[in-house]
């Protein structure tokens, strides 16, 4: 299904280089041009490096009031999570990594301090989707304040007098910022064996019940 390298690069070249011809295409007249100013209310996405963070600011103290009123019922008074909703403060990154290395469960220990890339995207997410029951209801200043408080209870920042704005968030280093790497798959090679693929009897684990983790006794089929 994938074309040769030559035709691939030819297609890419045609797509990107021929952009000046776009206006003269046969579909001219479909859709309208729009100004950046008109798009602005929708153009809310903030990049990891802080690009497109808006003007405004908010303090840890202001954020505490918003958090306790609108966030604590799901994320816990101290960021410990509640009713199955995510923690703000998870295990310290070193602890999470230690548990991962010994194959212990880390899913329940995840928080903003061990699994979040950048402070600007925390602001983005809070302004875009939180509080869960009223998304996009916070003003830019309120979103800064809430972000600031969440960073504080997640122990990413230690200063309870902090005031967060675009510059502050750009300078804030998240503990897990460099704990990511891009997809290396395919990472597992299974030879397509057809005959005599298993030397020993299969060791079967089961049986499952819906909603109930079942480790089950190890036994060989036929025993």
């Amino acid at each position, binding site marked *: 299904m994938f074309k040769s390298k030559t035709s691939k690069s030819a*297609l890419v070249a045609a*797509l*990107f280089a021929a*952009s*000046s011809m*776009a*206006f003269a*295409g046969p*579909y001219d007249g479909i*859709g309208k*041009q*729009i*100004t950046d100013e008109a798009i602005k209310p*929708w153009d809310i*996405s903030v*990049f*990891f*490096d802080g690009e497109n963070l808006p003007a405004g600011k908010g303090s840890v103290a202001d954020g505490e009031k918003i958090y306790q009123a609108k966030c604590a019922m*799901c994320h816990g008074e101290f960021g410990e999570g509640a009713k199955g*909703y995510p923690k703000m403060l998870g295990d310290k990154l070193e602890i999470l*990594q230690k548990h991962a290395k010994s*194959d212990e*469960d880390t*899913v329940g220990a995840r928080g903003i301090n061990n*699994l*979040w*890339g*950048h402070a600007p*995207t*925390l602001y983005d*997410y809070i302004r875009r*989707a939180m509080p869960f029951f009223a*998304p*996009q209801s916070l003003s830019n200043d309120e979103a800064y304040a809430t972000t600031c408080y969440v960073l504080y209870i997640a122990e990413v920042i230690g200063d309870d007098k902090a005031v967060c704005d675009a510059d502050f968030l750009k300078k804030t280093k998240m503990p897990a910022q460099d*704990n*990511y*790497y*891009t*997809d290396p*798959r*395919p*990472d*597992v090679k*299974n030879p*397509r064996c*057809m*005959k005599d*693929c298993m030397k020993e*009897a*299969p*060791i*079967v684990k089961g049986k*499952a*019940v*819906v909603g109930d*983790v*079942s480790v089950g006794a*190890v036994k060989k*089929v*036929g025993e």
Partner: protein
Amino acid sequence: MSEEKITMPVSGDEQAVASEARRSFLRKSVAVAGGALAAGAVAGRAVASDVVKDPLPIPPTNKMLGRGVVSVPYGMPSKFEAHVVRRNVEWLTPDTIASISFTPLQDLEGIITPAGLHFERYHAGAVDIDPSTHRLVIHGMVEKPMIFTIEDLKRLPQKSGVWFMECPANGGMEWRGVQMDSLQFTHGMISCSEWVGVSLLDLMKLVGVKKEATWFYGEGADGSALQRSIPLPGAKDQFGKPIPDADKIYKDIIVAYAQNGEALRPENGYPIRLVVPGCEANLSIKHLRRIKFSNKPLVTYQETRHYTDGMPDGRFRQFTLVNEANSVVTFPCPDKKLPGKGAYEVRGLAWSGRGKVKAVDVSVDGGKTWKEAKLVEPVFSKCLTRFTMPWEWDGKETLIMSRVTDETGYTQPTLRQLRKERGTNSIYHKNSIQTWKIEANGEVKNVQIENL
């Protein structure tokens, strides 16, 4: 036709078994597979006694008038199919608003998922959007930022395809051990539809995407305003490392307005959504309102906190976009026990986010030997593919499983192989071989073979 013509005279003995035969007839008429052999085994009788000798009853529906046209203006499945529904797992998520439901794969045939049974994944619930007010904005690194109505999009050339849509968490409850004794719950985060819309490439030409653009992101008009970064040729991550498959993924992408012949359902993104074939379904942004071209990814919530895969060294994989090849036996399965020994057709589904399914092998001896199954046409790229294999069950405990190889030569791994590489904290992209254990009584259980 008169009743006399089809009613044959019968003897007293034959009349004596008439009611049992009627029950048997009904049972057989709804059996998934097996015919007379299976029905005989269930009743515990010799096969020869299962010959139908008594006269067939006239179905009552032969003697009545049915509903008139448009008494059901939008047709619904038979009331006898009421069990074929999406289901959810209550303990999986704290509410049903940011949650997922599962497609009843055990009751579906062929490769198309009816839109009403397409699995649902909401980050903030399904919304009803008026298409007359909905707009798509395309901007960023473009010559000409543009805004489109749904009517505008429908004037542009159509592009369509039959592609699967799969959540990367499909099977994710099974990393640490067997958990869900049901095909619907082990594999039901996948559906497959014919999607119709506008090619991203055409939209790119219309707005004049600049050469330096190496990414774009899509954003939804729902309460989550879900956004995901999607790579274009030359895409690099926030560390400057290249994104695999960046020169392949974007070519198939469409902005879809139709699914299986009709408008998208609200649950699937009405009025328009991105469809990113082969990739984890959260890239296919529902209720799409905005596309922005850039020279870097957002690296946002969905790309660090959420759709990232925890590895045994404590790090997290990001941008694990493609759903690798996967397959599962859909009959028999825990949801469909075997009525008795005898002849069956093993059936299943296979798919690959990297292209077409090349072959599917089936094992009925716990993975010792494998036999190539028949692929049922059509076989499309990044689409569910149906496979079948004739099989005679001897009534003994049996371990049955399937294994797909795609056109890139990649063969579906075992769970042991996946765990060795990725541990058990990954949540996402568990595409390992699924084993079902058929018990002597015909019940089918979800099991894992530790040494496969």
